[in-house]
């Protein structure tokens, strides 16, 4: 194992996961001296009556819920954050619980900045490192469609990015009741986002041992549980395992630069509006193939995470990357159509590819060449193998 020259790592959150995890939130908040959280969530959660489950979890405690706002739309906005901050202050709350997907977490982070920094002008925090004070306690409860970006130090409101280490959630509470799969597409797309993040984070040039530990756990959980989770949506164990994977992948993602596949998928989904996770799932095998064909390094540990020790020690070092790719392809095949095989199956117009490659090139800070991005995209579009 090589020794890294230099690395940094931070996981701000306390992770609690498993049976009755929601019931532990009051005592965790008590540890922050907080007695009145504001719950921010979306209709999808309250529609599944999970908001009531949460309210019940607070029974027999001294914690009053300052209000359950359940109307966060899929798109987070400054105006909503502002209104919520008024609700927060009006009720005299002292912490925030975000329960739901990406936009819920983003809005909650926005509110937290406003009320903690005592500054109504959220626009002035856009950029990196503008938040300077420690924020109010922030609890995040993932659901089955949380893809891990919620756990990072980024809030994306109205397409504007606010980045600061203070934005990490303080507590992440995963409860099987909340992470039970909602639909095949959601489960697959979130798992694919997590898998891509984990694989890319663990194969960046700068080896980071701590980040690797998270990434490998995530990969292993996804590999072992995705098929199960897709097959039977009510499977609480698989759902919980996938949520764990998403959280871990999110944390590694926050500690590693965005990889090639993430960047391309991000660009393409911003143009076409298709789900980013699905896009990553489609692009993942092609991205890896590209790396293999160009003899770029894919570390053997990936196979270790995917196949386990016994398989790993038997495989010669040279074949590890190809073998890992094969396993990932098998995984995708086992989903039986929940994920399209190539981009053209998603009915994306072909001319968008050029545009996406250009955006990806710029978004990556010119790290990934336009031609490379386009190459990967075109292969993925036609379903043509690199090897």
């Amino acid at each position, binding site marked *: 194992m090589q020794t890294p020259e230099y690395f940094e790592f931070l996981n701000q959150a306390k992770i609690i996961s498993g049976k009755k995890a929601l019931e532990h939130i009051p005592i965790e908040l008590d540890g922050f001296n907080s007695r009145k959280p504001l719950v921010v969530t979306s209709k999808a959660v309250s529609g599944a009556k999970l908001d009531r489950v949460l309210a019940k979890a607070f029974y027999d405690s001294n914690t009053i819920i300052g209000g359950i706002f359940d*109307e966060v739309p*899929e798109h987070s*906005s400054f105006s909503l954050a*502002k209104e919520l901050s008024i609700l927060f202050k009006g009720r005299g709350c002292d912490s925030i619980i975000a329960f739901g997907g990406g936009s819920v977490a983003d809005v909650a982070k926005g509110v937290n900045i406003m009320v903690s920094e005592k500054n109504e002008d959220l626009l002035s925090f856009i950029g990196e490192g503008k938040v300077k004070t420690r924020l109010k306690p922030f609890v995040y409860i993932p659901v089955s469609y949380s893809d891990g970006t919620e756990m990072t130090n980024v809030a994306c409101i*109205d*397409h*504007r990015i606010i980045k600061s280490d203070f934005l990490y959630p303080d507590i992440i509470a995963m409860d099987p009741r909340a992470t039970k799969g909602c639909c095949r597409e959601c489960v697959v797309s979130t798992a694919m986002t997590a898998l891509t993040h984990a694989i890319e984070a663990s194969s960046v040039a700068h080896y980071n041992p701590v980040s690797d530990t998270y990434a490998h756990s995530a990969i292993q959980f996804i590999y072992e549980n995705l098929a199960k989770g897709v097959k039977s949506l009510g499977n609480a164990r698989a759902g919980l395992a996938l949520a764990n994977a998403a959280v871990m992948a999110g944390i590694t993602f926050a500690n590693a630069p965005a990889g090639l596949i993430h960047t391309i998928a991000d660009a393409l989904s911003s143009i076409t509006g298709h789900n980013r996770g699905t896009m990553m799932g489609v692009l993942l095998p092609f991205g890896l193939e590209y790396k293999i064909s160009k003899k770029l390094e894919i570390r053997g540990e990936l196979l270790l995470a995917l196949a386990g020790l016994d398989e790993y020690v038997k495989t010669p070092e040279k074949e590890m990357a190809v073998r890992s790719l094969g396993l990932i392809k098998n995984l995708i095949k086992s989903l039986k159509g929940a994920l399209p095989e190539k981009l053209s199956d998603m*009915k994306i*117009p*072909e001319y968008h590819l050029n545009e996406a490659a250009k955006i990806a090139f710029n978004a990556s800070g010119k790290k990934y060449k336009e031609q490379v991005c386009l190459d990967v995209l075109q292969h993925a579009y036609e379903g043509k193998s690199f090897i």
Partner: protein
Amino acid sequence: MQEIIGTSNRCLEIDLTKQKFEVFEISKKDRNMFLGGKGMGLKFLYDRMRAGVDPLGEENMIAFCMGALMGTGAPCSGRFDAVTKSPQTGIMTAASCGGPFGMALKTSGWDAIIVKGRASKPVYLYIDSKGVKFENAKSLWGKDTQKTQEVLEKIGSGAVVIGPAGENLVRYANICSGHRFLGRGGMGAVMGSKNLKAIVAKGKEFKIVPKKQKRFDRVKNKFNRYINSNSITSGSYRNFGTNANVNLSNAAGILPVRNFTGGSHGEAHKISGETMAEKHDTKYSTCRPCTILCGHKGNFDGNYRQVPEYETTGLMGSNLEIFDPVAISEWNDICTEVGMDTISAGGTLAWVMEATEKGLINSNLKFGSKEGVSQMLKDIGHGRGLGKELGLGSKALSKKYGGEDFAIHVKGLEMAAYDPRGAIGHGLSYAVANRGACHLSTTLFTLEAYFNMASPNAKRGKPTMVKFMENIFAAVNSLHICQFTAFAVFLEPPLIKFTPVPMLKLLTQNLTPIALSLMDVSLWPEIWYSIVGKTYIPLLSMRKFMKIGERVHVLERYMNTREGISKKDDTLPDRLLYEGRKCDPKEKVVPIDRMLGKYYKIRGYDKNGIPKDRTLKRLGIVKK
């Protein structure tokens, strides 16, 4: 004068790059499958244009298609269509207009023209029965729409022109003919991008006669009878113009107020059609020929101006919290002159006002204040300062500055002045309409909110009604006849006229197909058949007509899905999906997801909203 019997079927394909034109003929099959107007235009573009062209690039095309009825003297038939790929939404857009150009082109012997390519310098086209002349438009470039038409009136009997907005590629610039417009989707910018200032047709060279004159006269009389006895077409619209909708909308709670945060307002009566008729001494000023007579002119503080249509009044009036007809008519005139869509302009202004209030953007515009609006409209049209950015529309603005939750648009097209939270069926219609938040795709709000014939809050039956009306209107726009005739056609047949309203309501909600079959849509196919001389068979022809509508609608959807449209785009702004209104004690929102699935199913789309191969084959859009 020569006569054309039925339709001439002759078309022009004009290439601006090469400055050449070709004549071609519409096949009989196409005519039967797509009628004319919108349907034919879409078919032309479907055959000629690949997906993914830049709407403002050389490859985009614009087709002007005349209605089959035009020139025959059929009621309300003086309308023509244009179809192109919209620079505002990036998908197909089709608009209809009642200006003099249609009649002029048709009586020059042409049923349609397709314009493609790009001229190297500004030109205008002169069309007569022999063909096209490419004229230098240097002297016209920069002139407003009305002045340009004054010049062109001397050479032809009708023209389509663009104003400065089109020249400056304002994304919602429109095309003007007389004082009527090809309004939505930014067709003016497409003409502007082609350096095409105007098209003028000589006209009055041919006379158009129906094949079966006697039958035609009989149907026409019946049509006129219906129109004249209907309370909307012969009453409120004829007397007060479309602004008669203001009071109706206000009462039903679907009038947009303060960028769609409210549904009614205490001062709304000040801008109603009734008030305007009384105060501003309005007179008819309409398309020709017309039986309904909804367009008016009026005296606004000494200026003789076209009375704003309801959508203009709603979006530039109540939606900005301004209740002054004089100001609204002035802004309407500015938009007329620079040539841009009042709905999109109003919607964009409302977004800017709210964004200013929330500190996302810097401007001097405020809700309820008239200050700066005239100047801003002129700036948009001429592409100056902040106006240049506003010319990109609220979708692009909100992407850039944030505030997407209160950018009221669907697929990039700003919403017309009917708030779907008071008529959820219309909400579904907005979401799935082909060209964006279009109120003309169906006019379901009339049934839901005005006539009380369907419950505005019930989800049941709405997908079926939306599908039915979309099909009808797609066919009507291809036939081409004024959509307002639908009021008469729908509501006047005896069966529906004498059924008590509460019972109708029950019917529409629970036995939707039966309720819809009460409406007599036979008049339209009948008049069409009498012109081309085919035999009209009562039920069969009606079904055929409906299928044409379906074909046109699905073709447009299919072309849009090739551009990347899918379920993700069939949605409404967050404000309408999540935010209740104060005027509504229950704070209802539009439950779009639940209706969408059903709609796709009955439409023959897959789960992602893309037409299934089976559907396309059944309709003859792709070969079997």
